[in-house]
């Protein structure tokens, strides 16, 4: 424990130009698998297995990976919607790993979430005004008039008309609902927003509107984003740095430019090569991975990717490679480097 405490201090000082807002250290989140007559825990699904990264203030960190790789679990654990099994979450230098009750509720003012499904994340019985003002009612002492003014201001910031105030979620299209969700997340002027697949349920033309809005708000509200998505081109558009996850592990993390110009991990290479090319003349010979992602309940030994890796060697099944800095700011967990 002591060791980690001191480490935290040093990392904060090391932050060259900007301070670290979020510091994740060796985070693990396991889901118990119950079974048998007494419903005892018989196994664990290692959804997030030993994850460490930092997000600096004002930065956007993108997390990519295929379904089941643990990217959403990571987001939810950071928000403390899930209890981490092990590891540390430091937010603005404060350890929030084990806080609970009112302390946790107060801390959550600073980190909010935008959800994937704009159809399911709005309460159908509440008007938009109620939805957006709820966080304010809980934390801020405001008169009814102030509250309404504040909500109308938020609605206009996310591009919704004032008439929206009295309407209900079902009266809006997917893109507009996502804007309501964003207004709700912004209500308490948080420092960090975790956006979990915010555009994957939307059509392309609407998707671009929401992406533009998120970028605009980042400057306006001085926000830091953890942007979770499976679409690599969307993540590339949004992020300053990108982390690639596979089976609960971070296999590569680097700046946007560095990752796409020179992906180092064989999984990242395959993932980038799998994106459909938007120029029909450039149909390429892609790296097509064989098989599916193994079950996180029973992950392969050694490197989690070795069962599908085109470059796997014998020792890959024995040694689990740690994340190493190969180039400045470019970390990769692969035995090849």
């Amino acid at each position, binding site marked *: 424990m002591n060791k980690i405490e001191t480490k935290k201090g040093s990392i904060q000082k090391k932050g060259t130009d900007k301070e670290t807002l979020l510091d994740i250290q060796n985070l693990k989140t396991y889901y118990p698998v119950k079974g048998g007559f007494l419903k005892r825990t018989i196994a664990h699904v290692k959804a997030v297995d030993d994850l460490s990264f930092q997000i600096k203030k004002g930065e956007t960190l993108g997390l990519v990976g295929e379904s089941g790789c643990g990217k959403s679990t990571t987001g939810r654990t950071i928000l403390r919607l899930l209890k981490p099994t092990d590891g540390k979450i430091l937010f603005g230098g404060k350890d929030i790993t084990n806080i609970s009750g009112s302390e946790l509720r107060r801390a959550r003012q600073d980190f909010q979430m935008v959800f994937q499904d704009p159809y399911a994340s709005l309460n159908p019985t509440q008007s938009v005004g109620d939805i957006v003002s709820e966080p304010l009612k809980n934390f801020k002492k405001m008169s009814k008039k102030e509250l309404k003014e504040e909500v109308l201001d938020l609605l206009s910031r996310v591009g919704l008309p004032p008439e929206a105030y009295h309407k209900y979620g079902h009266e809006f299209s997917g893109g507009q609902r996502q804007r309501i969700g964003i207004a709700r997340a912004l209500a308490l002027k948080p420092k960090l927003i975790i956006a979990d697949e915010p555009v994957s349920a939307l059509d392309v033309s609407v998707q671009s509107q929401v992406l533009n809005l998120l970028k605009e708000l980042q400057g306006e509200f001085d926000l830091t984003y953890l942007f979770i998505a499976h679409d690599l081109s969307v993540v590339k558009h949004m992020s300053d740095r990108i982390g690639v996850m596979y089976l609960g592990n971070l296999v590569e993390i680097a700046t946007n430019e560095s990752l796409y110009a020179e992906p180092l991990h064989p999984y990242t290479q395959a993932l980038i090569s799998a994106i459909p*090319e*938007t120029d029909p003349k450039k149909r390429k010979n892609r790296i097509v991975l064989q098989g599916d992602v193994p079950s996180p309940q029973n992950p392969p030994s050694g490197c989690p990717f070795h069962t599908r890796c085109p470059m796997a060697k014998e020792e890959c099944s024995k040694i689990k490679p740690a994340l190493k800095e190969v180039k400045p700011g470019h970390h990769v967990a692969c035995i090849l480097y």
Partner: protein
Amino acid sequence: MARQLSGQNETPLLEVKDLQTGFKIGKDYYNAVEKVSFKVDRSKIVGIVGESGCGKSVMSLSIMQLLPQGIGKVRGGEITFDGKNINKLSEREMNKIRGKDISMIFQEPMTALNPVFTIGYQLNEVLLNHENINKKEARQKSIALLKSVGIPRPEKIVDEYPHQLSGGMRQRVMISMAIACQPKLLIADEPTTALDVTVQAQILELLKDIQKVNNMSIIMITHDLGVVSEICDEVIVMYAGKIVERTDVVKLFEEPKHPYTQLLMGAIPKMDERKEVLDTIEGLVPSIKDMPQVGCRFANRCPKAMPECITVTPELLEDDVDHEVACLLYENSKPLERVGGR
């Protein structure tokens, strides 16, 4: 195969003419597909792109005659498949074509497979229905089919249930079922939308291979321009129930003509360029109930709209060789001089 190739090469495999499909809301029918005409040539992959609600799925259901009964109805137009008019066929006659000459794969492989029957049972069903073989032969053929779509351990999988397979594997099963009787036309409705990118790449490769081996045509319905550029030969862009542009895939990406297509291309983040602000399309698709009857349906969202866009309906006509567009910015789309001739 030889039989298929000889003789009738000139006629397109599928020809859809002025198709109108309506849905009943209250007492009236409203058209979700409005006078759509296109053709699919033999051994070609035709992509149909558009956003949700543009009528691309309704069109494919109209071809297959799988519209929800009592609600959806083909209200006009002709569908000619392999030289034969199929939109007046009885349910019984259509059953002979569905699954045999035209087959379909759906977006959601979990809901498209029946959870209470084994993979083998569901594959046999197709084979026994359309081919003159016994159960034992059908099982052998099922295993061979599963193998041909790249399923490992097919002799085991054939006795397993859909829930035991992953999403990608289920989609492979769906494909094996669709190609079981070597159809001439495969309609793929968003076949990779529910899948991860690496699995999507596998399925697209598989579809390309099968298309070559079986020499069939594919109608690829998708909202993803990346998928289109990856496998299609020809592309149809739809907006609000109408075709706005149709051309060869290379031409579409090099020189999109319709403002809607141009915006759609600008709205997707590209891998090889970085731009701060993506193109957006303001406003919403008009609802099916208050679709403008005259004028261009995109006019209210179009940045290049002119006053006549509201009063004159553009026609889908060739502006360039093999490049059709329905927009008044292009001379040929203006119906004016042709009015007298009619």
